[in-house]
């Protein structure tokens, strides 16, 4: 009965994510860390474009265009994550190790986890997906208050884990 899609649930559906130009092809994920821009709606917004030092993100005119990721130019540096006002950009390193992936996401809550912590990791709907190990808690004045958290999770969850579960809500 519940309709799917970001307009009905706030969570982009699998179809919506397949159709957007901000996500690289499967092969690129095998090559190393890459930005994942989960921007699915046309809103006037383009800070991501100027954020990339390698010119890998294009929005152009009108500024409602969905950002296009040039997967060849993207080095996975993560400069774009803290710049997106919608907190919709993630950094995914599918082959962090043989068994695990590394997912980095913007986080603006307290308490902050600490590197080395084991945390409950959640999906786009906040529900529990798996336990993960916090690898890095990245804070930088240039991020203007947004913290970037990296968690190591079982590899199969590289496109599922997008957050740490908020206490008691998962």
């Amino acid at each position, binding site marked *: 009965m519940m309709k799917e899609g970001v307009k009905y649930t706030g969570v982009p559906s699998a179809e919506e994510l397949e159709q957007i130009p901000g996500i690289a092809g499967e092969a690129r994920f095998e090559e190393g860390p890459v930005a994942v821009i989960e921007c699915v709606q046309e809103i006037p917004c383009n800070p991501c474009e100027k954020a990339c030092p390698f010119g890998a993100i294009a929005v152009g005119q009108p500024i409602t265009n969905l950002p296009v990721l040039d997967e060849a130019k993207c080095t996975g540096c993560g400069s774009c994550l803290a710049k997106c006002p919608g907190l919709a950009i993630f950094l995914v390193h599918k082959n962090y190790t043989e068994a695990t992936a590394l997912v980095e996401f913007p986080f*603006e*809550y*307290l308490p902050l986890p600490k590197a080395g912590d084991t945390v409950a990791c959640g999906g786009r709907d906040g529900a529990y997906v798996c336990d993960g190990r916090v690898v890095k808690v990245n804070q930088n004045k240039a991020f203007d*208050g947004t*913290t970037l958290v990296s968690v190591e999770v079982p590899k199969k969850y590289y496109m599922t884990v997008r957050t740490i579960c908020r206490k008691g809500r998962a």
Partner: protein
Amino acid sequence: MRVTKHPILPEEAPCDVTIYVDGKEIPAKAGEPIAAALLAAGIRVFRKTAKKGYPRGIFCGIGRCTDCVMTVDGQPNVRTCVTPVRAGMKVETQIGLGRWAEQA
């Protein structure tokens, strides 16, 4: 409840004055809206309506709706959401339209 630690905003200074709400001492910050000090102390009922005595508290927060009015230092109908706290202020739950305090 006061929000001391915040993920984005800088740390806040502690309370520096005392005000009196229905005779009870409440910590507050000089200059903050009276309503903020009350909410921080867990006080949400600011007045009772004239006819049926129903409880009322803050609604709009920008001085437009007048739901938050209380008697302050003897003056009734003071909008607590836009009136700043002063040390020693006397704030009273207002019943109905309130009454001017008797001048000594």
